């Protein structure tokens, strides 16, 4: 008789017990963000990265630990990154620029790197091709190629029709932060536009010497063009000094235009780069190999103008350029 009760009970148990799922454990993903510069502050890439990661269900303190390694001194920053990596458990390095990527590449060992962004990653030696990086790093580029710098210079000229002389400000790397292709492209473009060109290499924008400013004082129609390979993050001092000399300043990001009195920029949206970079971080944390993830280039450059700064330096921005501007700060 027992089987007559047992069989239905087994069937009932079988029908009820099908909805139990496997339990999950939360793993904390450890990501180091490398920054060559002062405090992180309100960096658009970082904001975009955080927003993107949050959207991809990464929450700091739960399944994500973001560790920032920064210093204005490049060797010190590299040493700090090396020390951080030695502690172990690092899943990924996010390099917030080209110099950061160079430093990370030197000490990363087997830890994958995502650059957000890097300038011309092929000529910088980071990847072998954009479609298939074939390296332990990938990410987004800032410039599509050297022609982008020429385009920036041309747009600078469109905003400042009175421009005659341009001081190009590059970072302090041995090659001046600007490889030969960029330099050649700038020269070519300047020639087409009838501009004089001079290059000044400094470790940081804050260290721009009196020579630069005196030069602009001596030569009317002088403007300062920051070559965004090093992504100088602090331009406020330079912008204030340039404003006193009524010299227009071309910056690297919309944030600089908005917050640091930089006249204008024509560049990719760094927030969007950071936001998109979260996708790379997610894929790599989930096991994808960096060498299989294609490097993305910016789809669009944003024209951003600070009309107040323009007024301070006595510049009348052509109305058609204001119309074409993506953002205008007053």
């Amino acid at each position, binding site marked *: 008789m027992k089987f007559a009760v047992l069989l239905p009970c087994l069937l009932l148990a079988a*029908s009820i017990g*099908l909805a139990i799922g496997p339990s999950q454990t939360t793993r904390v993903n450890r990501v180091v963000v490398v920054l060559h510069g002062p405090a992180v502050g309100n960096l658009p890439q970082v904001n975009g990265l955080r927003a993107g990661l949050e959207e991809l269900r990464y929450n700091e303190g739960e399944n994500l630990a973001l560790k920032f390694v920064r210093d204005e001194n490049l060797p010190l920053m590299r040493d700090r990154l090396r020390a951080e990596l030695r502690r172990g458990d690092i899943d990924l390095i996010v390099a917030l620029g080209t110099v950061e990527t160079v430093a990370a590449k030197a000490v990363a060992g087997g830890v994958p790197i995502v650059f957000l962004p890097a300038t011309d990653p092929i000529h910088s030696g980071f990847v072998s*091709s*954009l479609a298939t990086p074939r390296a332990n790093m990938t990410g987004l580029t800032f410039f*599509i190629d050297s022609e982008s710098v*020429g385009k920036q210079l041309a747009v600078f000229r469109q905003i400042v029709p009175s421009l005659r002389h341009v001081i190009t400000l590059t970072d302090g790397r041995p090659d001046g932060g600007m490889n030969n292709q960029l330099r050649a*492209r700038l020269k070519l473009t300047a020639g087409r536009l009838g501009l004089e060109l001079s290059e000044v290499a400094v470790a940081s924008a804050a260290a721009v010497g009196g020579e630069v400013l005196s030069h602009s004082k001596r030569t009317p129609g002088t403007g300062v063009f920051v070559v965004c390979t090093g992504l100088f993050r602090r331009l406020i001092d330079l912008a204030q000094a340039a404003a006193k000399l009524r010299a227009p300043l071309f910056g690297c990001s919309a944030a600089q235009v908005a917050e640091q009195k930089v006249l204008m920029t024509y560049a990719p949206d760094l927030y969007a780069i950071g936001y998109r970079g979260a996708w790379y971080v997610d894929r790599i944390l989930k096991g994808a190999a960096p060498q299989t*993830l294609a490097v*993305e280039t910016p*789809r669009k450059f944003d024209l951003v103008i600070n009309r107040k700064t323009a007024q301070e330096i006595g510049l009348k921005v052509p109305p058609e350029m204001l119309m074409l501007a993506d953002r205008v700060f007053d």
Partner: protein
Amino acid sequence: MLPGINSRMPRQGRLVRKYFFIFATLIGGGMITSGLLEIYFRFYENQEQIAATQAEAAKAAVSKIAQYILEIEGQMKTATLSRVVAISGLGPEYRFELSKLLYVAPAITEVAALDGQGTAQLHVSRFRALDPTEKTDYSKSAAFLQTQQGVTFFGRVYFLRDTEPYMSMAVPIERFPGSVIGVLLAEVHLRYIWEIVRDIRVGKAGYAYIVTRSGDVIAHRDIDLVLKRQKADHLEQVKAALRPAPVIQKPESMVTSSLSGEKVLSSYAFLPGLDWAVVVEQPLGEAYETLYASLFRTSTLLLLGFGMALLAAAYVARRVVQPLHTLQRGVERIGKGDLDFRLQIATGDEIQTLAEEFNQMAAALRDAYANLEDKVRERTQELVIANERLKEVDKLKSQFLSNVSHELKTPLTAIGSLVDNMIDGLTGPLNGKQTRYMTGVKESTERLARLISDLLDLSVIETGKTEVRPARFSLDGLIGEVVENLKPLAVEKGISMEIGQNNGDATAWADRDKITQVLTNLIINAVKFSPAGGSLRLGMAPASDASFLEVSVSDTGPGIPPTEVERIFHEFYQINQPGREKTAGVGLGLAISKKLVEMHGGKMRVESVPGQGSTFFFTLPSWRPGAGPSLSTRGTVQ
């Protein structure tokens, strides 16, 4: 085991199982059949519905993409409708219109205004600083030649830097409708379509992608596949989508593998103007999620229903069989004699009727059994009383015999002495006739004395007063001694006596006088019944039980009929056989002898062949070293 016995063996649960399977088959079978049919039809109906929904999703995706391309085309055409063109043609003033086009159409990265000869008069780029003096010739290009006809041109997809998908588009520039003065040629960055494709959601994990005729994926939720120039022309759904077909294609759905190898439900639609296929895929698990959920629910309910049906079947089977079990147990109890037990079954059906019949039968049996017991008890009581009376009578008889014998023996002894004196002439000489009469008196007196002596012996034995005094003696010697004493009797009748050769030890452990009496009785009987000139043989041998000796006495008398063999040991029994010589005696010798043997633990028996003779056997304990006096010293023989 016998079939009859086997059929009565208990078979616990057989009937329950039988009923359970019948009910379970009927109820559960019906449920399962209907459930499976329901699942079958629901599966195919839902599958078709899901496929139709998926196909509609592909159709909607195509519509969105076509709309986006048409939007770009519209923006380009708007740029050609500028008043500047009407006033000054493709002069420098038109450059601003081109810049505006780049502003309003982010997907366009470069735009060039070609004059009627196909030469680029103006060229604006989003990323490049172009040489304003450069006049590129596009007169041989398909874009220029096709657009000159007033038709919008959609070029083939190409990959800039081998990673970014681009496409050329061209629209005619008309000073006024029908007057084409040039061509507006644009390079469209197709990654912008990614945003449209990315936003096409089919369920939770469903996605869309676009494949060109050459098999290149140019838009996919995973932009990485585009940038890596993933080929998809090996996929079945892509082959089907790009298969030459009528202009208006009906969206179709199929179960295939995705680019990642996952099983997906695919549907596709074709964009004829662009020669692109839009494929919509959804992981099969998700596509059929509602279907699976529905099947799961149905299956769960079916299982639950089946389980309940089985429980109900078990319950019903128990309900049906329970009264039968009660009936069976009741009948077993009644069968074992518990006639007061009554079956308590109130099913209101034939089983209850049967139980009532059993109860009536048990009541009748109990009454009959009670009467029988009373009668048996009554008869037993009567027998006990009769037995007591018999014992008393027997005791009285023995006392009577003892008293009578004793009282008779004394005068007989006196008579015998007196007769002997008279025969011996102490009372004077007797003549021949007197002597003959006295001799007759003496013989009668002696016979009467033996009779009384036997009666006394029997009386002593039956009253338990006989005492056995065992002693060690030679049985050979005893036999020889008795034979020697009785030899004159045999000689007188012309009967020869022979003692058989004994090869073993013949030392007995018994009451020598009692055994002498037994042996004497048997020999006298043998002489008595043997005809003149007959023979008599005595033998002795170890009995089958090694602790006994067996003595045999054989004669050549008339033998004993088989029907009389047992009776000859009864008291006062004599064989009454026609032609058989009537002998002296009252029939006590064998009875006494048998009792005396049995008092020693031995047995007496007879083997006889009528007309040839008889052999009487008896056993008596043999002496063994260390054997003590184990025989009872006093007792009766039953």
